């Protein structure tokens, strides 16, 4: 979809959040010189085209107790990466799963998935169970738990 000037203004206007009022889209419209209906239609279009991935609550997962956050990385043979990626991506506790480039010789891993949990032991249990149930024992992997979080904000759009 081709975005026009008005779309970019709308995207920037709501990036930090929707107004917490009864008619949030009317309020946004007032700021931008649009009708409530125009705002609703445009947001709907942005959502259907996938530019807005979703609309609603963005949590601070640390503050909700999700402090054990594991990035599990796998060194999967290139011809198996799609299959293993689909397998991992369909596990209920996996929150993200991406293929990324290896950086040899120091970084041989090409498949990344995130598992967020409230306790490190439970996250490790989940990972062991996935490895066993999916038959992934022979694929080299590493688990990188996060330490301190230094910055969390969304991307900014002008």
């Amino acid at each position, binding site marked *: 979809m081709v975005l026009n000037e008005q779309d970019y203004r709308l*995207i920037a206007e709501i*990036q*930090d*959040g*929707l107004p*917490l*009022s*009864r*008619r*949030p*889209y009317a309020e946004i419209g007032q700021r931008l010189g649009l009708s*409530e209906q125009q705002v*609703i239609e445009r947001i*709907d279009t942005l959502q259907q085209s*996938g*530019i*807005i*991935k*979703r*609309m*609603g*609550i*963005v*949590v*601070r*997962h640390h*503050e*909700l107790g999700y402090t054990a956050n594991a*990035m599990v990385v796998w060194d999967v043979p290139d011809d198996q*990466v799609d299959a293993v*990626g*689909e397998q*991992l991506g369909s596990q209920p506790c*996996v929150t*993200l*799963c*991406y*293929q*990324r*480039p290896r*950086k040899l010789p*120091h*970084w041989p891993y090409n498949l*990344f998935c*995130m598992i*967020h949990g409230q306790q490190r032991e439970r996250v490790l249990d989940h990972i062991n169970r996935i490895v066993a149930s999916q038959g992934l024992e022979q694929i080299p992997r590493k688990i*990188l*738990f*996060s*330490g*301190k*979080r*230094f*910055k*969390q*904000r*969304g*991307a*900014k*759009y002008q």
Partner: protein
Amino acid sequence: MDDTDRAIINRLQDGFPIADRPYRLAAEALGIQEQELIRRLHAMLENRQLSRFGPLYHAERLGGGLSLCAIRVPVDDFERVNEQVNAFPEVAHNYARDHEFSMWFVLATETPQRIESVIREIEQATGYRVYNMPKEEEFFVGLKFEV
């Protein structure tokens, strides 16, 4: 946080209505009043359990650049490098991880081309190589949290 707050978090990470009274519609589905939903969202934003209430954008479809980067920073140099990296406005978030590749951050830029130049700038500022690991294939993006 009580059961109602938890229900709000579990139900409203996606699919907030695009309609003239969206809070009323969402509140009805939760069995509460519109004003109460607004009040509770406000409170959870205030006490920082929620990061924000609104859209989550697809950076690449907006024409932006997005990449995961890592640096192998020795422990005794971590603080200095961390400060330098976080000073870049393009760094969206940054986590320490327990590995030789110890610093992991996401770059979000206005154009895809800008990723490479920010990486050069970070390398010049810190003196370390930045390993750029953009996504090549996406198998799953859920990233929702049950409470």
